[in-house]
C-alpha cells in the first residue's frame, strides 16, 4: 500500500466525516461500483430463480442473505481505485476470485447478522488477518459509527423501495387495473409481490455502493487516526524536501526517528506498560523537552464597574423589598387573570353561538314591514265575542286571523309541534299527521277562507265567518277554551 498514491486526503476525520467521504467516493464512482455489485449479484439471483421461482419471498431472502458476497467486489474495486488503479469491468470480473476469498464464507454464515458489516468486511477482506488476529485487529480498529451506518442505510433502502413502489402505483394510468399494494407486500404468490421484490433488489443495489464506500472510508479514517498516516505522508514530503536541501537542521532528528521507527506503519496491540514505555522514550528525546514561558493578556473585568445595585438593596429595608415583591406578584397575577379572561371571552362567545346552532338572527328584520303572530297580540279571553265584534266592524280579515290562530293553538294543545315559521300548508301537513279527519276538514275550511281573504283579497260574507265560528268550539281542547 503506497500511501502517497492515495487519491483522498489522509487526515484525521471524525466517523461522520469519514462516512461523508465514503458517500462522496460512492457518488464519484457510482456506476463502476454499482456494476461490480451486479456482477456478483445478477448470476446468483438468476440462478436462484430456477429453484425458487414459485417462492419470491425465499428468493428475496437468499439475495438479501448473500449481500456480503455482492459487496466484496465493489470493496475490492474501491480499494484499488483509491490508490489510483481503476479496474475496467472485464478486469474487475477477472479479479472476482481474488475478491471472493474463502475467508468470505464466515461473513455469509455465522457472521452474516451484525451491524458492523461494512467496516468488518474491509478489515477481513483487505487485511486478511487469520484466526484470533482478526478479532484482535477488530478490537483495535473498532468504531461504533459502523452500526449507525448500517442503520441509516437500511432505512434508506426501505425508503427507496417504498418510494419506488408508490411512484409506480401512482403512475399507473386511470382505466388500467389499480395496483394492489397490499398484495405487493403480503401476497407472496402474486405478480405485485414479484415486482416489489425486484424493486427491493434494485434498492439494495443502489444503496450498496454507498454502504461499501462509507464502510471503507470509516476503515481508512480509523487507520489514519491510529497509524498517523497523515504524519507519515507529511514526513515523507519533508524527507523529499530535505533531499533537495531545504529542510531545517532542527527537524532532522525527528524526521529520522519517524522514518526509521519500525512500528510506524501499522497500529499494533500492546499493553499499557509497553505503550507507556514507548511514549516515555519518544518524549525523552530533546525535541520534546524544554520549557517555554509565554505571556498573554487575560480579561479580568471592568475596574470602573460600580456595585450600585447591591448598595441600594442594602439601603432599602427588608420589609419594603418584601412589600414591593408581594405587590408585584399580585399585579402580575391580576394581569394574568385579565389576559386569561380576554382570551376566554371569544371562546365562550363561540361556544354559545355554536349552541344556538346559527338559530336566530339578531333581530327579525322586516318585522316592521308586516306583523307576524308575535305582534298580533295575545288571544282574546272571549274569542266568539271578539270575532263578532270584528265582523261588526267590517274587519273580516282580522276575524279570520283570530279563528286561524285559535285553531293553531288547539293543534299545539293536541301535541302538534308548530313553530312560528310554519306557513298555512305546514300547519295543514301537521294536522294531517294528527289523524283527525274532522278537525283537518275544519282547519282546511278556515285556512282556505283566511288565505282567500288575507292574500287573495276576496270578499267574504260575515255569515260565512260566523258559521266557522260556531264549529270551532268543537275542537277546543278539554278543560275549556284555555
Amino acid at each position, binding site marked *: 500500500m503506497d500511501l502517497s498514491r492515495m487519491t483522498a486526503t489522509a487526515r484525521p476525520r471524525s466517523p461522520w466525516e469519514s462516512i461523508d467521504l465514503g458517500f462522496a467516493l460512492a457518488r464519484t464512482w457510482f456506476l463502476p461500483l454499482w456494476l461490480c455489485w451486479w456482477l456478483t449479484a445478477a448470476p446468483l439471483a438468476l440462478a436462484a430463480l430456477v429453484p425458487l421461482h414459485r417462492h419470491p419471498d425465499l428468493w428475496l431472502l437468499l439475495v438479501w442473505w448473500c449481500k456480503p458476497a455482492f459487496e466484496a467486489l465493489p470493496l475490492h474495486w474501491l480499494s484499488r481505485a483509491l490508490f489510483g488503479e481503476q479496474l475496467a469491468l472485464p478486469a474487475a470480473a477477472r479479479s472476482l476470485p481474488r475478491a471472493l476469498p474463502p475467508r468470505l464464507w464466515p461473513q455469509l454464515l455465522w457472521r452474516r447478522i451484525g451491524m458492523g458489516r461494512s467496516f468488518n468486511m474491509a478489515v477481513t477482506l483487505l487485511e486478511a488477518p487469520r484466526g484470533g488476529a482478526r478479532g484482535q485487529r477488530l478490537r483495535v480498529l473498532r468504531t461504533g459509527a459502523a452500526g449507525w451506518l448500517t442503520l441509516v442505510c437500511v432505512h434508506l433502502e426501505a425508503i427507496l423501495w417504498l418510494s419506488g413502489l408508490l411512484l409506480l402505483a401512482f403512475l399507473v394510468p386511470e382505466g388500467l387495473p389499480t395496483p394492489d399494494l397490499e398484495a405487493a407486500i403480503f401476497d407472496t404468490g402474486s405478480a405485485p409481490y414479484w415486482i416489489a421484490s425486484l424493486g427491493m433488489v434494485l434498492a439494495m443495489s443502489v444503496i450498496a455502493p454507498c454502504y461499501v464506500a462509507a464502510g471503507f472510508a470509516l476503515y481508512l479514517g480509523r487507520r489514519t487516526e491510529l497509524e498517523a498516516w497523515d504524519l507519515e505522508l507529511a514526513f515523507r514530503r519533508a524527507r523529499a524536501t530535505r533531499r533537495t536541501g531545504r529542510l531545517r537542521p532542527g527537524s532532522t532528528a525527528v524526521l529520522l526517528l519517524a522514518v526509521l521507527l519500525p512500528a510506524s506503519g501499522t497500529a499494533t496491540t500492546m499493553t499499557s506498560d509497553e505503550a507507556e514505555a514507548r511514549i516515555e522514550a519518544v518524549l525523552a528525546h530533546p525535541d520534546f523537552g524544554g520549557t517555554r514561558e509565554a505571556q498573554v493578556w487575560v480579561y479580568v473585568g471592568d475596574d470602573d464597574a460600580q456595585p450600585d445595585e447591591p448598595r441600594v438593596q442594602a439601603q432599602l429595608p427588608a420589609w419594603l423589598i418584601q412589600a414591593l415583591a408581594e405587590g408585584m406578584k399580585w399585579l402580575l397575577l391580576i394581569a394574568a387573570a385579565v389576559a386569561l379572561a380576554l382570551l376566554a371571552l371569544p371562546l365562550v362567545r363561540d361556544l354559545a353561538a355554536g349552541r344556538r346552532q346559527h*338559530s336566530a*338572527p339578531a333581530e*327579525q328584520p*322586516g318585522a316592521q314591514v308586516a*306583523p*307576524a303572530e308575535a305582534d298580533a297580540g295575545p288571544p282574546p279571553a272571549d274569542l266568539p265575542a271578539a270575532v263578532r265584534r270584528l265582523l261588526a266592524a267590517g274587519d273580516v280579515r282580522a276575524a279570520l*286571523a283570530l279563528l286561524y290562530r285559535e285553531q293553531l293553538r288547539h293543534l299545539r294543545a293536541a301535541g302538534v309541534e308548530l313553530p*312560528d315559521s310554519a*306557513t298555512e300548508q305546514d300547519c295543514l301537513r301537521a294536522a294531517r299527521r294528527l289523524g283527525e279527519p274532522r278537525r283537518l276538514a275544519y282547519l282546511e275550511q278556515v285556512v282556505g277562507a283566511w288565505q282567500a281573504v*288575507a292574500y287573495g283579497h276576496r270578499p267574504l260574507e260575515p255569515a260565512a265567518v260566523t258559521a266557522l265560528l260556531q264549529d270551532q268550539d268543537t275542537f277546543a281542547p278539554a278543560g275549556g277554551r284555555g
Partner: protein
Amino acid sequence: MTTATPPPAEQLAAARDALTQVEAQVNRAVLGQRQVVREVVVALAAAGHVLLEGLPGMGKTLLVRALAQALGGRFARVQFTPDLMPADITGHAIFDMQSEQFHIRRGPVFCNVLLGDEINRAPAKTQAAMLEAMQEQQVTIEGQSLALTPPFLVLATQNPIEQEGTYPLPLAQLDRFLLKSYIDYPGADDELSVVRTVTAGRVGDGLDLSAVSAVMAPAQVLEVQAAAAALTLDDAVLGYALRLVRATRDWQGLDSGAGTRAAVALVRAARGHALLAGNAYVSPDDVKAMAPAVLRHRVRLGAELEIEGWRPDDVLAELLAAVDAPRA
C-alpha cells in the same frame, strides 16, 4: 297591498294549463327530476333565468332542450369553453367588401331560449358578456344596441366548482339568475326507467326529445308571464319575503347575505309558483317554496361552515325555520 288588477279566472286557468303542459312535456323527457323541472317552469312563468348545477350526465342539457322544444321558440346553444370570446355569444360586425359597409352578424344570444352549456368553463370576461342580455334584454355590438325578442330565457348549466377546469361565476352574474337549481341523482326507480328508456332500440347516446312536442308559442309565454305578474300580492306576504331576505344579511355563518334584487326575485318566483299552483294570489307557502332556489346562489357561506361541510341549503333551511310566517 298591491294595486295590480288580478287577471280574470279564465286567463289564470289558461296560463296554469299551459304551464302544466310544459311541465308535463319536459317530465316526459327528463325522468326523476320533478323538483328541478318545476323550478324551471316557475322561472319561465316569472320570466327569469335559471342556473342548473349538477354533475355531468345528470340531464341538465336534456332538460333545457326539452323545455325549448316544448316552448316552440327559437333555441340556441352555446358550449362554453376556456377560449370562447364574448363576440361568439353576442355577435360582431363584419365588413362587406361589396357594399363597403359593416354589417352586424347576430350571435346565438338572439333567440328565445338560450342554453349556456357548462357556463363556468369560460373565463369571467366571456361570462360577463351575457350580463347585458340577461338583465336588459338587449345586446350592444359596435355601439349599437339591439333588443332581444321576448320571451328571452337563459338556462345555463354548470358543473360544481370543485371540478377541475372551471371558473366560478362572478357574483354580479350569479345575481342575474332568478333561480339556481341542483340536479341531484335520481331515485333508483327513476334511474332504472331512464336507462331502460334510453337504451331500448336506440343506437348511441344522443338526447332523445322525440317524446316532447311544442305546447306553447312564444306569444303565449308572454301572456303567462303577464298573468303571473298580475297576481295579487298582499303586504303580509311581501313582508314575509322581505324578512327572509333581510334575515340572510344578519345570519350567523353567512359571510354575505342576499341583496335587494334577491327580494325582487323571490317575489317574482313566488308569483310563478302561485300561478303554477292555480292560485290567483301569492301565499307565504309560495314564498317559502321558492326561497331556497332563489337565495342559495346569493348567499355566501362563512369559512367555518364551509369547512364543516355545510351547504347553502342547510343554512337556508334553518333560516326558514326561524323566520315567522304571517298569521295576521
